[in-house]
């Protein structure tokens, strides 16, 4: 268990600033998720913590000790790779015991520790097999097992579930949460999947363009995003961003703006409206809108709606049971509770 502190961390490749100064405190035993679109620098940051990339500037502290120049193994970090990176020519047991062997642990002690880790992950029956004989899910377990065996101070996960199919991914997600509770270890987890971020993290750091946009608990980020980027990144379907209408805007657009932004400070020029807060009412009562596309998922239905004068389609997530909501149908919209988020002209939240 360890505390990881990043202060003023930068990374430069040639003349390109990839990471533009990151300050972040990861607490002992925390499950921290780095989330963001591809190329935002989340993996690079993780690799700098691991010691696989040099840190151009700034300080990396692990348990209060400056680790910038330490070799990966001396940082006490273990990493699980997206590709699993199992040694193909070694059995599962040898894969898991490799780090211990490098550390000079005796064969007997090694096999005891590997055995314990294998039990935790329920892969004891696989120990004599080779990676090529395992399924994707089993390989993933072995990769995690290899990390556990070392008893690291901090676990690093680089998109570990992205090569698994959907059902297995849900299982492994639960499994990883269980593991975190069981080991109580500090974990840093990189993903571009916001569902993983929301469900697994004690806290989430949302990355964008080489910096952190916001850090906080999943629901805090969802309910009170610091800016439009965070608001748009978390939540599926995406949050609706409605801009203030021009003076000559359509009646429907102006009515929508009044509905959403009424009583907010003047500097609010755009509002965020979560799809689940959109209420569908009879055509002649609310803001007039037309269904462009409807996805009936069984439990809920996702509607793509056009409001005259609003450039982007609005998303609405409504309870199932509206089979009449087909493309072309005209409906009315109203808001569910006071859940609209206001943004100023820089995209920052106005509370």
């Amino acid at each position: 268990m360890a505390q990881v502190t990043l202060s003023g961390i930068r990374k430069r490749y040639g003349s390109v600033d990839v990471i533009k100064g990151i300050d972040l405190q990861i607490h002992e035993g925390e499950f921290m998720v780095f989330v963001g679109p591809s190329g935002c620098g989340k993996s690079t940051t993780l690799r700098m913590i691991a010691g696989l990339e040099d840190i151009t500037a700034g300080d990396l502290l692990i348990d209060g000790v400056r680790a910038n120049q330490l070799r990966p193994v001396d940082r006490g970090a273990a990493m699980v790779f997206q590709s699993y990176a199992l040694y193909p020519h070694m059995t599962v047991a040898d894969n898991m015991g490799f780090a211990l062997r490098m550390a000079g642990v005796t064969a007997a002690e090694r096999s005891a520790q590997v055995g314990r880790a294998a039990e935790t992950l329920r892969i004891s029956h696989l120990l004599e097999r080779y990676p090529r004989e395992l399924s994707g899910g089993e390989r993933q377990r072995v990769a995690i097992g290899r990390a556990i065996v070392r008893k690291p101070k901090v676990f690093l996960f680089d998109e570990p579930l992205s090569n698994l199919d959907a059902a297995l991914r849900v299982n492994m997600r639960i499994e990883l949460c269980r593991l975190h509770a069981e080991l109580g270890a500090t974990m840093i987890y990189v993903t571009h999947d916001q569902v993983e971020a929301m469900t697994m993290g004690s806290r989430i750091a949302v990355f964008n363009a080489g910096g952190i946009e916001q850090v906080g608990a999943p629901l805090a980020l969802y309910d009170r995003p610091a800016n439009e980027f965070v608001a748009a990144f978390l939540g599926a379907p995406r949050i609706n961003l409605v801009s203030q209408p021009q003076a000559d805007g359509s009646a429907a657009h102006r009515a929508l703006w009044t509905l959403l932004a009424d009583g907010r400070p003047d500097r609010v020029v755009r509002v965020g409206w979560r799809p689940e807060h959109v209420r569908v009412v009879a055509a002649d009562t609310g803001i007039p809108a037309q269904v462009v596309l409807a996805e009936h998922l069984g439990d809920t239905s996702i509607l793509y709606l056009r409001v005259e004068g609003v450039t982007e389609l609005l998303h609405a997530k409504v309870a199932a049971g509206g089979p009449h909501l087909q493309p072309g149908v005209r409906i009315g919209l109203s808001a569910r509770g006071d859940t609209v988020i206001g943004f100023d002209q820089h995209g920052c939240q106005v509370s």
Partner: protein
Amino acid sequence: MGDTTVSRLGAYAMVAAGGLIMLAPFYFMFVFATHARTDIFRLPPPLLFGHDLPGNVAILISRMPFWRNLGWSLYVALFSTVLTLLFCSMGGYAFARFEFRFKQSLFALVMGTLLVPSFMNMIPTFMIMDALGWIDQPRALYLPGAASAFGIFLMRQFVATAVPKDLIEAARMDGCSELGIYFRIVLPLLKPALGTLALITFIASWNNFIGPLIVMRSPEMYTLPLALRSLQSPVGTEWGALMAGSAIATLPLLVLFVLSSRQLISGLTTGAVK
């Protein structure tokens, strides 16, 4: 009988004829190895095995230190192979997986040496070996070829497909030293390519005639191809003994090839498809 059967029989006949033509010299080498010189020049020449093999071997041994020459051939071929495997795999690994200054230019330079005809190297090689005082020493044969451009290229291509970057980083995270990564992770994964390169290198060294011709002076330091050449003379070449020597020289390669032809072919095509 359908058309396809006829054309298939035709194809078999052609392949069989081609095979016969290619195998004939090989067959006659073994046949002549069992006949005395006078028998070989009879008309028609002998087509079946005779009884003079012991006599031919006796001539061979009396004319040259045959077993010693065979030993040197084996010694040089083994050393060349081991050194080539070591240095080519290291070089190929470095070019495939490390970033360093002038990497592209260095690789271009290595590849460029493939363009130089090997005969152009004869005189410089002799001068260098002479300057080093290595004339008549086996190391003059196995050291210059210890890292071949072809081998480095083959290894680089193979590393690029068979050794993912993640594996190397995983080993680094596991506390493996850089040399440890090479020996414990990279080398085992290169096995198929190493087998191919070993075979190619061994055969090339075993058959090498020009190399020893340049750097070896005393007959007791000759490798087999050179030693056998010394049996030839304008008058009275001992063809029976020469054929016996050639046949013995071929045997190790035959064994090697039978054991590893599948490996050789799979190694050469790895990376070509997939």
